[in-house]
C-alpha cells in the first residue's frame, strides 16, 4: 500500500485523505450520553446496581423509596460522567487551539494564511523559526543555503537535543521563488506510527530538472508537534495530516491496569454477592413458608386467598432489594477518590523532586498506587536508570598501549598527552576518529565557545575528549567538517554516513581529506561488530583484552577502526549505497548489507572506555528494596561483563563467598538446555541457604530459552531472586516481564529510554525515569520519577501507605454495609419474614453516602508507621506484598465484626426500646444512631495517627448525623418529624447509645490489645518502638555507602589483565563449588554436584571449541 502525494495539486488529493483536523476527543456532544453510559454499564458492579434500582421501581417489592438507590446511583454516574466530560472538553479545547492556529500555505500558487485544520495532503506549508509543525511535512526548502534545518523533537520522542533535517537532494538549490510553483509526486507508505522511519521517493515534474527518483528518509521530514529552531524558515509538503500523522497514529488510550487490590476487592465482592444470594434464597423460602402458615391466620394482614402468578417471587425479591446494600454502592467512588489523592501525594512530594533538573515525580496512572506496595519483582534497565547516563571518557587503549590505567583518567595521562603532541600517527588517527566519526553538530555561541549537540551521549563524550586532546571539532557545514588541531584547521568532506543501528552495532563515516583527497572509512562500534572485521594479520588480542579489562571495570567500550579507501572502490560502493538508500521495501536491511561490503579489512586503532557513573543512592536503594523482599532483575543491552560490574557496584549481586553467579550460555539449543538444567539444579539446592544466587543470561541464550525451554526458564525465574540479562532486545525485555507476570508476580519495570517502553507498558507498574535519553519512557510509564533512588520512596512510602489505606477503606466499606444489612435481616425475623425495612429510605441513602463515607475518606491521611521507620525497616513491606492486610481472612474478621456489631445494635435496641417504646421510627433511629456511633469508634480504633482532619471528620460526622436528623425532625412532612428531638431528650436513649458503644467496642478493644501486646505483628512492634520513643534499632541499619566505580574496582584493574580466564572466576562460578562444600558431609546430595560438575566441565569444553 502506498500513498502518492502530488505536490501543490489542489484538486487531486483534497478529498482523498483526511484534512488536518486533530481530534483526540472520545465523545461528541450527541453521543456523549449513550456512549458514556454504555461504558459505565459495561462494568459488572454498575449493571448490578442498575438491576437493583430497576427492581425498586416495582412498588410491591421495594422495601424503601426507590430514591435510596437511584439517588446514589445517579450521583455516582454523574460524578464519573462529569469527570469524563471535563477531560474530553479539555481535549477539545487543546485540539481546537491546534486546529485553529494560522499557518502559511500555498494555494493556487499564492501564499495564504489559513487555519491549520485546512491543510491538505500535498499542500506546501511555510514555517518560521520557533513555530510548531502542524502536520508531517517533507522538506523542500529552507533558509539555509546548505538545505539544513534544525528541529526540536521533544514533544515527539522527548529528546531535547536539536536534530538536523536536510532537504532532499533533488530540491537542493531550487530558487526561493520557485518553491511556490513546484510540482511533483511523493511516493510514500501509508501512515504508520514509526517515528524513526520514512521510506519514500520524490520525483519532481518538469521544469524542475532533476527528474530522477530521489530517495527520502526520516531525515528529510519534519513531523507534527516538533518545533523549528535555529532556522529562519522552511517549507515542506504535507504528506500526512490530521490523525494520520506519525504522532496521531501513535496516540492511543492504553489498556487500563487492574491492581491486585482491585482484583481482590472484586473477588470479595463476588463472595459477598454469593452470600447475598444465599441469604435471599433462605429468607425468601422462610418468608413464603411463614406467609402460608402464619400470615393467613393474621386477619389484619388480609392476605388474599389467591395471589398472582409471581406471588412466590415477591418475598425473595424484596429480600434481594433489602440485601442489595450489602455491596456498598459507594465503594467505587470512594476508591476512585482516594486513589486520585494518592496520585496527587506522589505529584506533590517534595522529597521526590530531582533538584538538578527540578523535575517532579508524576503519577500518570492514578489508579494503581496500591500495586506499588505489592511489588515483588523489579525489572530495571541499566543505562540511564541505574547509571546517570552522563558519559565521561576515562581510558583508552591505542595500538596496544593502555592509557589512563594509573590515574583513572586518560585525559590526564601524561603519556597520552605526550603522544598527541609528538604526533604519533596511531594516536592522531585515533583522536581524529573520536572527533569526526559521529553525527554531532557543533554549535558556536556568540562568545565563541563551542557546544555540541549530540544524539548519543557516547559520541558527546568522545568529541569532548578529543577536544581536550587538542583535536577540536569546530564546525560542520553541510558536508564539510572543520577540525582545529594544534591551531591548524583541517577540513574533511563527509561523503557518506553509515548510520548506527542496533543490529549493526557500529557506525561509520566515509570522509575525504580535503588536503590530499584521500578517502577514508572511519568506524566505531561494539567490539564484536568491529574486531571480527579486522584486516588479516592484525593482532587483535590486545584489543580483546582491553575490552575485557574495561568492561570488568564497568566501563562502556567502543572500538575505533579505519581504512583507507581507493577512489574506484568507493565509487562502486557509492552507487550501491545510493540504490539501497532509495529502496522502499526493507531499506534498513538492504543498507546494512551494503554497509557490510565496505566495513571490512579494518585497521583497528584502539579501544575507548567511557564511564557511565552510577546515580546517587543506587546501591542503598537496591539494598533497601531487596531487604523489603523485592527481587531485582537487570535487563540491559550492554555486554555481560559491564553488566556484572555495574551489578556488583550497586549491590545488585553480592561478591563471592556471599553471592554466586550462575551463567547460562550456549549457542545452540542443546547447550542452552543443558546450561539451564544445571543452573536450575544449583538453584534448587541453594534455595535453603542464606546466599544470594543470581543467574546471568545473554540475549542469544535467552532467545533459545524462551523459545524451547520456556517451562524450565519459568521455574528458574521463580527460584531466582536476582538475574542479569545482558544484550537483550526491547521485545525480550517485554517477554521477561510477561513470564514473571504469568507466574502471578507483581512486576515493576523501570527504565528511561525508548527501548524500555515495551517493558514498561507490559509490566503491572511501569516507572519511567525522565532522564537524558528523553521522555519517551516517562510518557509511556504509569509513574515518572527523576532519579532511580526515588523508587525507594515511591514503593516504601507511597506504595505501602496506599495499600494500607485502600485495604482499610475497602474492608471498612463492606463492614458498614454488612452491618446495616445484618440488622435488616435480623429485623425480618421479628417482622414476619415479610421484608420490612427497619430503616427509612432517607436514612438508608444517607447512611452509605454521607454518614459513613466521610470519616473513612480521611483514612488517606493515616500512617501506621512513620516514613522514617519504614525506610529503616523495609522488611515491613512484606505485609503489603503478601497481601496480609486485605485477604479473605482479614475480610472474614471484618465480616465477623459487622455480624457481632449488628447483633449488639439489634439486641440492645429492641430490648431497651421494648413494649410501650417500641415505636417503629424510634427503634429505627436508635438502631441507626447505634450504627453511626459504632462506626465512628471503629474508624477511631483502626486509625493509627490522628491529624486534625481525622478528628474533624470522625467527630464532625457524628455531630453532622445529629444535626441532619434534627433538621429532618423539624420538618412536619417528614416521617421523622419530632422523633430525633424526642429521643435526644430521653436519658434512656443516651444510656442505650453508651451501652451499644461499650458492648460493641469492648471486645474489639480487648482482642486488639491482646494481640497487640502478646501476639504483635511486626508492624505493631515497630509502632510500639516508634511511639514509645525507644531506640528503633535495626541490626541491619543502612548507612549510606558512598561508592564509585573508581574506588571499588581500581585495585582489580592492575591484577586482572594478566591472568584472565574466559569466565571471570571469582564471580561466575560455573559449578556450585561453594554449595558442595556446605553439603559435603551429607551424601544424599552427592549425586547432584557430581552431575553438575560433569555438565559444567562439558559446557566449558564446548565453549573452548
Amino acid at each position, binding site marked *: 500500500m502506498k500513498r502518492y502525494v502530488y505536490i501543490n495539486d489542489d484538486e487531486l488529493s483534497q478529498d482523498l485523505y483526511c484534512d488536518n483536523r486533530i481530534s483526540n476527543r472520545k465523545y461528541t456532544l450527541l453521543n456523549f450520553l449513550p456512549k458514556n453510559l454504555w461504558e459505565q454499564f459495561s462494568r459488572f458492579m454498575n449493571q448490578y446496581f442498575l438491576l437493583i434500582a430497576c427492581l425498586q421501581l416495582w412498588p410491591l417489592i421495594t*422495601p424503601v423509596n426507590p430514591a435510596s438507590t437511584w439517588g446514589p446511583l445517579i450521583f455516582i454516574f454523574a460524578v464519573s460522567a462529569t469527570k469524563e466530560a471535563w477531560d474530553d472538553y479539555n481535549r477539545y479545547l487543546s485540539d481546537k487551539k491546534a486546529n485553529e492556529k494560522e499557518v502559511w500555505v500555498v494555494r493556487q500558487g499564492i501564499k495564504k494564511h489559513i487555519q491549520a485544520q485546512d491543510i491538505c495532503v500535498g499542500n506546501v506549508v511555510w514555517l518560521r523559526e520557533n513555530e510548531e509543525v502542524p502536520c508531517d511535512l517533507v522538506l523542500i526548502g529552507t533558509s539555509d543555503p546548505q538545505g539544513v534545518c534544525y528541529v526540536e523533537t521533544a514533544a515527539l520522542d522527548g529528546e531535547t537535543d536539536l536534530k538536523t533535517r536536510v532537504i532532499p537532494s533533488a530540491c537542493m538549490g531550487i530558487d526561493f521563488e520557485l518553491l511556490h510553483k513546484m510540482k511533483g509526486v511523493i511516493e510514500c507508505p501509508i501512515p504508520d506510527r514509526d517515528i524513526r522511519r520514512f521510506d519514500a521517493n520524490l520525483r519532481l515534474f518538469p521544469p524542475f530538472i532533476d527528474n530522477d527518483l530521489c530517495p527520502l528518509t526520516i531525515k528529510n521530514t519534519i513531523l507534527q508537534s516538533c518545533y523549528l529552531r535555529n532556522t529562519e524558515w522552511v517549507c515542506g509538503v504535507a504528506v500526512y495530516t490530521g490523525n494520520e500523522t506519525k504522532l496521531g497514529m501513535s496516540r492511543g488510550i492504553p489498556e487500563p491496569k487492574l491492581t491486585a487490590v482491585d482484583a481482590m476487592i472484586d473477588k470479595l465482592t463476588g463472595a459477598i454477592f454469593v452470600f447475598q444470594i444465599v441469604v435471599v434464597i433462605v429468607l425468601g423460602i422462610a418468608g413464603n413458608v411463614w406467609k402460608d402458615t402464619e400470615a393467613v*391466620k*393474621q*386477619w*389484619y*394482614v*388480609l392476605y388474599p386467598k389467591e395471589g398472582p402468578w409471581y406471588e412466590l417471587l415477591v418475598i425473595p425479591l424484596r429480600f434481594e432489594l433489602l440485601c442489595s446494600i450489602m455491596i456498598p454502592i459507594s465503594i467505587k467512588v470512594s476508591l476512585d477518590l482516594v486513589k486520585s*489523592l494518592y496520585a*496527587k*501525594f506522589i505529584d*506533590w*512530594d*517534595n522529597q521526590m523532586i530531582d533538584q538538578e533538573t527540578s523535575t*517532579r515525580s508524576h503519577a500518570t496512572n492514578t489508579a494503581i498506587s496500591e500495586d506499588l506496595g505489592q511489588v515483588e519483582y523489579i525489572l530495571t534497565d541499566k543505562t540511564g536508570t541505574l547509571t546517570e547516563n552522563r558519559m565521561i571518557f576515562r581510558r583508552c587503549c591505542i595500538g596496544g598501549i593502555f592509557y589512563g590505567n594509573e590515574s583513572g583518567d586518560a585525559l590526564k595521562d601524561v603519556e597520552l598527552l605526550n603522544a598527541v603532541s609528538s604526533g604519533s600517527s596511531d594516536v592522531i588517527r585515533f583522536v581524529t576518529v573520536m572527533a569526526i566519526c559521529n553525527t554531532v553538530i557543533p554549535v558556536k555561541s556568540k562568545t565563541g565557545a563551542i557546544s555540541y549537540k549530540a544524539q548519543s551521549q557516547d559520541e558527546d563524550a568522545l568529541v569532548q575528549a578529543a577536544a581536550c586532546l587538542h583535536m577540536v571539532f569546530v564546525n560542520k557545514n553541510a558536508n564539510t567538517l572543520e577540525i582545529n588541531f594544534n591551531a591548524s584547521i583541517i577540513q574533511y568532506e563527509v561523503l557518506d554516513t553509515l548510520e548506527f543501528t542496533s543490529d549493526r552495532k557500529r557506525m561509520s563515516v566515509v570522509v575525504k581529506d580535503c588536503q590530499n583527497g584521500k578517502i577514508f572509512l572511519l568506524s566505531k562500534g561494539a567490539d564484536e561488530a568491529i574486531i571480527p572485521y579486522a584486516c588479516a594479520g592484525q593482532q587483535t588480542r590486545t584489543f580483546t583484552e582491553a575490552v575485557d579489562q574495561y568492561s570488568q571495570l564497568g566501563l562502556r567500550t567502543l572500538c575505533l577502526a579505519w581504512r583507507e579507501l581507493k577512489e574506484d572502490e568507493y565509487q562502486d560502493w557509492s552507487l550501491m549505497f545510493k540504490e539501497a538508500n532509495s529502496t522502499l521495501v526493507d531499506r534498513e536491511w538492504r543498507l546494512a548489507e551494503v554497509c557490510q561490503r565496505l566495513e571490512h579489512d579494518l585497521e583497528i586503532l584502539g579501544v575507548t572506555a567511557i564511564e557511565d557513573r552510577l546515580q546517587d543512592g543506587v546501591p542503598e536503594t537496591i539494598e533497601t528494596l*531487596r531487604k523489603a523482599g523485592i527481587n531485582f532483575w537487570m535487563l540491559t543491552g550492554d555486554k555481560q561483563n559491564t553488566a556484572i560490574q555495574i551489578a556488583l557496584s550497586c549491590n545488585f549481586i553480592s561478591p563471592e563467598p556471599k553471592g554466586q553467579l550462575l551463567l547460562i550460555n550456549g549457542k545452540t539449543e542443546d547447550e542452552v538446555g543443558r546450561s539451564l538444567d544445571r543452573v536450575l539444579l544449583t538453584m534448587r539446592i541453594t534455595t535453603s541457604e542464606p546466599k544470594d544466587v543470581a543467574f546471568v543470561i545473554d540475549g542469544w541464550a535467552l532467545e533459545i530459552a524462551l523459545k524451547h525451554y520456556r517451562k524450565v526458564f519459568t521455574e528458574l525465574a521463580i527460584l531466582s531472586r536476582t538475574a542479569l540479562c545482558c544484550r537483550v532486545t526491547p521485545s525480550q525485555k517485554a517477554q521477561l516481564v510477561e513470564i514473571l507476570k504469568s507466574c502471578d508476580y507483581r512486576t515493576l519495570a523501570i527504565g528511561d529510554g525508548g527501548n524500555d517502553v515495551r517493558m514498561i507498558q507490559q509490566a503491572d507498574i511501569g516507572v519511567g525515569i525522565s532522564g537524558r535519553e528523553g521522555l519517551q519512557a516517562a510518557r509511556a510509564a504509569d509513574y515518572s520519577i527523576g532519579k532511580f533512588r526515588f523508587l525507594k520512596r515511591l514503593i516504601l512510602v507511597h506504595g505501602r*501507605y496506599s495499600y494500607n489505606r485502600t485495604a482499610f477503606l475497602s474492608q471498612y466499606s463492606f463492614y458498614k454495609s454488612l452491618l446495616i444489612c445484618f440488622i435488616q435481616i435480623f*429485623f425480618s425475623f421479628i*417482622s414476619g419474614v*415479610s421484608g420490612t425495612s427497619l430503616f427509612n429510605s432517607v436514612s438508608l441513602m444517607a447512611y452509605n453516602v454521607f454518614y459513613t463515607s466521610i470519616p473513612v*475518606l480521611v483514612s488517606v491521611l493515616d500512617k501506621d508507621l512513620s516514613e522514617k521507620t519504614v525506610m529503616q*525497616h523495609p*522488611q515491613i513491606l*512484606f505485609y503489603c506484598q503478601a497481601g496480609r492486610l486485605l485477604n479473605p481472612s482479614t475480610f472474614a474478621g471484618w465480616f465477623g465484626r459487622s455480624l457481632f456489631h449488628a447483633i449488639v445494635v439489634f439486641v440492645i435496641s429492641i*430490648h*431497651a426500646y*421494648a*413494649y*410501650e417504646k*417500641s*415505636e*417503629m*421510627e424510634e*427503634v429505627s433511629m436508635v438502631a441507626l444512631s447505634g450504627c453511626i456511633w459504632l462506626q465512628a469508634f471503629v474508624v477511631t480504633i483502626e486509625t493509627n*495517627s490522628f*491529624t*486534625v*482532619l481525622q478528628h474533624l*471528620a470522625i467527630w*464532625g460526622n457524628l455531630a*453532622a448525623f445529629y444535626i441532619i436528623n434534627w433538621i429532618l425532625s423539624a420538618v412536619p412532612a417528614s*416521617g421523622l418529624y419530632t422523633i430525633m428531638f424526642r429521643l435526644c431528650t*430521653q*436519658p*434512656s436513649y443516651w*444510656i442505650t447509645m453508651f*451501652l451499644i458503644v*461499650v*458492648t460493641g467496642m*469492648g471486645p474489639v*478493644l*480487648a482482642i486488639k*490489645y491482646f494481640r497487640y*501486646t502478646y501476639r504483635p505483628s511486626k508492624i505493631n*512492634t515497630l509502632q*510500639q*518502638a*516508634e*511511639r514509645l520513643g525507644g531506640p528503633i534499632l*535495626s541490626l*541491619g541499619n543502612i548507612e549510606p555507602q558512598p561508592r564509585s566505580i573508581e574506588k571499588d574496582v581500581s585495585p582489580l584493574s592492575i591484577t586482572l589483565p594478566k591472568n584472565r580466564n574466559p569466565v571471570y572466576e571469582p564471580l561466575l562460578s560455573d559449578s556450585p563449588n561453594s554449595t558442595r562444600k556446605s553439603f559435603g558431609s551429607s551424601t544424599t546430595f552427592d549425586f547432584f554436584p557430581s552431575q553438575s560438575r560433569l555438565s559444567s566441565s562439558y559446557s566449558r569444553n564446548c565453549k573452548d571449541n
Partner: protein
Amino acid sequence: MDPNGGSSSAGAADGASDPAAARRRHSKKPKYSRFTQQELPACKPILTPGWVISSFIFVGIIFIPIGLASLFASERVVEIVHRYDKDCVPASYRNDMLAYIQSNETNKTCTRTFLVPKQMKSPVYIYYQLDNFYQNHRRYVKSRSDKQLRSRASENDTSSCDPEDVTANKSAIVPCGLIAWSLFNDTYGFSVNNTLLGVSKKNIAWKSDQQHKFGSDVYPKNFQSGGLIGGAKLNSSIPLSQQVDLIVWMRTAALPTFRKLYGKIEVDLEANSELTVVIENNYNTYSFGGKKKLVLSTTSWIGGKNDFLGIAYITLGGLSLFLAISFLLIYIIKPRPLGDPTFLSWNRNPAGHFN
C-alpha cells in the same frame, strides 16, 4: 468534610512556618504544605497496657453506678400486668374462642378484679399489650396514606392503602389502609374499691401527630362500612386529629410484642386497694394465638419498668472490671516489653530472608 477542602486551610496555616519557603520561588512547584507532604501533625496513640487497663477500669466504674441507678429506677416503677384474653372467654366457648369473638350475639363484657400491690402515684398509665401481633409486617405497615390523614384535599390519595383503600362503589375510605382498619377496640372501665375511676385520654397521643399528621378537617368516611369489619369504628363527627386512639394505634410498633397507651388514671392508687376492670373484649387475637394484656404502670426517668438496661450495665461493668483485672494480672505475671526490636524476625536472621 472533603479532605481536599480541609487541606487548603491546613496548608495555609502551616505555610507560615514553612521551612522550605525558599523553594516556593519555583513557579512549577506547588506551595509546600504539610498536607501535600502528608506531614500534618498527628497524634499517634498506641494500645499501652496502662491505657487499655485504665479505660476498662473506667468503664467498669462508670457502668456499675449507672446500671444500679437504672435498675433502681426500674424497680421503683409499679406495674400491673393482667392477661385477660383467655379468662374473658366464657367457659362454654373455651374450645372455640374464635367463634365467640366473631359472633355478634355473645356478651363481650368481662369483669376482672385484682389488688394493687404497691402504691401507684398518679399518673398511672393504662396500656394494652398485644403479643404476636405483627404491626411491622410489610403488608400492614405500608398500608396507610399519610397524605390522606393530613389533609382533606388528598382524601382520594389511597393508592398505598391496598387492600382497604376504597369501598365497593369506589369511594375512598377515610382513614384508609389496614392499620386504621384493624384499630384496637377493647375498652376498659376502672373502679377502685367500688368507686368509678375516670380514664383520661388527654395527651395520650403525640401532640405533633395531632397537630401535623392528622388533619383537623379530615373526618372519617366510609370507615368500617364494607363487608369485612376489622376493628373499632370511628365517630365520623370527630376529626381525625381528635381520634387519639387511632393516632396512638397508627404509630406502628417495631416489635411483635408491644404496648399502646390507652389512657391515664389521674389519681394515686393505694396499695392493696382492689381494682375492678370492666373489659369490653372485642378485639380478635384468637385467630392467630395472640395474647392481650392490660398493663397499669407508673413511670420513672428511665421510662416504664425495664430491667434490661440496668442488668446490661451492671453485667458489662463487671465484665470490664474483670477484663481489666485479668489484663493487669497477665501484665504483672508475664510482662512483655513493647516494641522490642528483637521481635523482628529480620533482626534475628540478618541474612534478610524474611518469612
